[in-house]
């Protein structure tokens, strides 16, 4: 068998993001080592392992991402090479799986100290390969609808975890050892089969074409939901708001609807109903806080792996002023956000109503009433709700401004931005804790230093040549920026500190000041859009 195509393809796949991959792995390692030294529980380490694994698996999605084509598929130039289809399908899968398996196994062994038998290690490898097969099949346009893709991947991951748990468990639980292995192998085979079909269809040029009956069925079913009648578009700004809403605005509310429905559905299980509703509400809010920047942050492409918000000539040449374009985007973001808030509020109310355990909520409420009297407490809660809404929307808009800024900033500009962001995080994160904060710092100097090193490495890597291309760093950066943005403006954090440290006015003012500062990028939005549009 001729190994040359294998090596050539593998070289290309790894070469795409070589430096970014290495740096990301280094960042992950630094974080992992830091956590170990700090003595934090294994769950934190596992969380980091899981997130980075997801990141890497998405990097190895071997697709052509070009700003001009929001629809990504198997790289076209590879399709015409004289390589057999099964090789073309196999190599990216193996490459990604190999890297991931190595990463996971090494992490488990050296950073979490878990010794695994060969059988279990192989099971993990097979599970990863199975997942990669399915993931590649999805990313190679076997199914066009993104929701369907996500659903399939969710099911596949669930099955993989289930099978893995069955294999690793001592007591032949769940599917049983043999059942687990069988499921994994079946998943691997079927996943590879679909990936192979996806490549064939790409080769024949009809990947994602509206020809197959399945596709027609799915699209007609989907269009039943979204067959939108066009509203009256009175002006260019209205038209552009409509456009932004259709392309970006529906994402966040749909995500929230999905998650909230999930939360509510879990109440079917009796056990859930008796857990404190405060925890559930906390989870809902946390999800919202993580998801809402997605809606507000208007990545220019549906594919969030492409980090740069580029303005295509079509939109740049629309007869709209920069202010009007900015306004349209922000208006859409606001609309999208408010819809998300409505969903969240409804969910919270329903949870409180149907939960059997509202003790913590009740005690919080009585505490508040004791402090401020009933009218004062009600006002406080209302203010909190208002503040959360505004702050999370600001975080989203901040991310939008960021994506436009980074698209035009040279490396000096990027450094300025990151240093500023970092300083803001440091100021808001540590200063309110005052002396306690300093003591905390001193106690965990080494892990914090490592964490800082990881972050510094991360920032340094953003000057890399291939930052502009799809890169795990870019995705990581998005997540980090979102997290920072939300932390910076999250009044929940401040309010909690308020209640416990009892420095009401100072911290309230500080929170307001932070939100106002975060509005600077929003006010700068027309200028940022102008910079993108008129280079």
């Amino acid at each position, binding site marked *: 068998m001729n190994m040359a195509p294998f090596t050539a393809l593998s070289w290309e796949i790894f070469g795409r993001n070589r430096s970014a991959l290495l740096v990301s792995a280094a960042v992950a390692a630094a974080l992992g080592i830091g956590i170990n030294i700090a003595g934090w529980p294994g769950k934190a380490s596992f969380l980091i392992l899981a997130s980075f694994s997801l990141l890497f698996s998405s990097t190895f999605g071997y697709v052509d991402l070009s700003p*001009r084509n*929001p*629809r990504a598929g198997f790289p076209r130039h590879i399709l015409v090479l004289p390589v057999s289809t099964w090789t073309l399908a196999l190599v990216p899968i193996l490459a990604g799986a190999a890297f991931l398996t190595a990463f996971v196994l090494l992490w488990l062994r050296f950073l979490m100290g878990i010794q695994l038998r060969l059988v279990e290690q192989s099971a993990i490898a097979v599970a990863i390969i199975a997942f990669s097969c399915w993931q590649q099949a999805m990313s190679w346009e076997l199914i066009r609808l993104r929701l369907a893709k996500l659903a399939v991947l969710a099911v596949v991951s669930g099955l993989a975890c289930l099978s893995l748990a069955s294999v690793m468990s001592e007591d032949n639980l769940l599917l049983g050892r043999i059942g687990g292995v069988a499921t994994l192998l079946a998943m691997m085979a079927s996943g590879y089969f679909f990936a192979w079909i996806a490549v064939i269809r790409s080769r024949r040029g009809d990947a994602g074409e*509206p020809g197959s009956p399945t596709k027609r069925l799915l699209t007609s079913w989907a269009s039943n939901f979204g067959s939108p009648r*066009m509203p009256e*578009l*009175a*002006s*260019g700004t*209205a*038209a552009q708001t*409509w*456009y932004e809403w*259709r*392309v970006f605005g529906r994402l966040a509310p749909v995500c929230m609807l999905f998650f909230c429905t999930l939360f509510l559905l879990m109440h079917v299980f009796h056990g859930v109903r008796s857990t404190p509703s405060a925890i559930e509400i906390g989870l809902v809010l946390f999800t919202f806080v993580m998801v809402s920047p997605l809606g507000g942050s208007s990545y220019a492409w549906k594919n969030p792996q492409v980090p740069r918000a580029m303005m*295509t*000539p*079509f939109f*740049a*040449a*629309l*007869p*709209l*002023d*920069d202010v*009007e374009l900015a306004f349209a985007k922000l208006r859409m973001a606001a609309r999208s956000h408010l819809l998300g808030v409505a969903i969240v509020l409804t969910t919270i109310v329903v949870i409180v109503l149907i939960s059997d355990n509202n003790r913590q909520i009740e005690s919080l409420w009585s505490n508040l009433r004791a402090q401020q009297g009933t009218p004062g407490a009600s006002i406080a809660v209302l203010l909190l709700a208002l503040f959360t809404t505004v702050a999370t929307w600001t975080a989203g808009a901040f991310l939008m401004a960021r994506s436009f800024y980074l698209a035009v900033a040279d490396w000096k500009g990027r450094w300025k931005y990151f240093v500023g962001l970092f300083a803001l995080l440091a100021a808001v994160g540590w200063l309110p804790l005052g002396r306690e904060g300093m003591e905390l710092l001193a106690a965990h100097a080494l892990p914090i230093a490592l964490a800082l090193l990881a972050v510094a490495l991360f920032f340094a890597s953003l000057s890399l040549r291939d930052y502009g291309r799809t890169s795990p760093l870019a995705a990581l950066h998005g997540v980090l920026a979102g997290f920072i943005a939300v932390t910076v403006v999250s009044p929940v954090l401040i309010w909690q500190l308020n209640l416990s440290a009892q420095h009401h006015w100072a911290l309230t003012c500080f929170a307001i000041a932070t939100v106002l500062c975060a509005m600077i990028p929003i006010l700068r939005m027309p200028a940022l859009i102008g910079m993108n*549009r*008129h*280079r």
Partner: protein
Amino acid sequence: MNSDTTNIVDIRNLSRHFGNKAALRDVTLQIPRGKVFGVVGENGAGKTTLIKHILGLLKAKQGSVSVFGMDPAQQPRRVLSRIGYLSEQPDYPEWMTVTQFTTYMAAFYETWDRRYAAELLDMMNVDPAKKIGELSKGQQARVGLCVAQAHRPELLLLDEPSSGLDPVARNEILSAVIRTVSNEGRSVLLSSHLLDEVERVSDHLVFFGAGNLLLSEPMEAVLSKHHQISVRHAGQLAWQKVPGAFNAIHANGEWQVFGYGEMDASIHGLRGLGAEILEQRLLSLNEAFIARSQSRLPFSEAA
């Protein structure tokens, strides 16, 4: 409609660099009303950069750009609402149907004529219920052309519109050009590689080479001044001394000398060098372009 005699586009001393590469060097160009300007040049010669400056997609860093008397980067809405633009690689939203797209675009232009738009779409045979992503490249170009004309723009800007299109679509584009310029006070800027088409419809030719504006002349002049003279001359021929000559090919004692300017002057010059005139003829735009591109003489000497 505004019918004063100032130029629609006024570009003065425009230069632009991308990194080390000079995309435009000291370009000065005016486009008056009611003319078709054909812009030709090799890939990378600066045509698209020029068009982007007119649209305000690039700011004029050196020199000035004025469209309808305004800076397009400063007042995008007022300038762009009077321009119809068809880009080289149209990137229309693929999820919209044709009807949705035309309704969406209609909202931006005050002068949008719904009936005219419907007429154009009908002429171009496009199914309005289809999504843009499902259309072929030629059909997408037709939709784009319809949208570019439906608001009756004062300036129609076509950037390599015919690349990769079938002959029917190409004909539609030429029709659009003629229709636009037939109306009083409207102009067209057509950048294309298809020199036959440029030759047919243009009033004025602009020739770019490596960022320089090599030639800016009425089409008639370009066609009547580019000539080729075949002569017989043994040994080396110092054709560079002939006024207007910019290129020459030599085979078997016969020379073909390409020149720009008065044919009689070239003939006289060649006779003076002792060459025997065999044949003389005017060049088509295609032949002139190729002869110029192959010329190793810098333009300033050949002028």
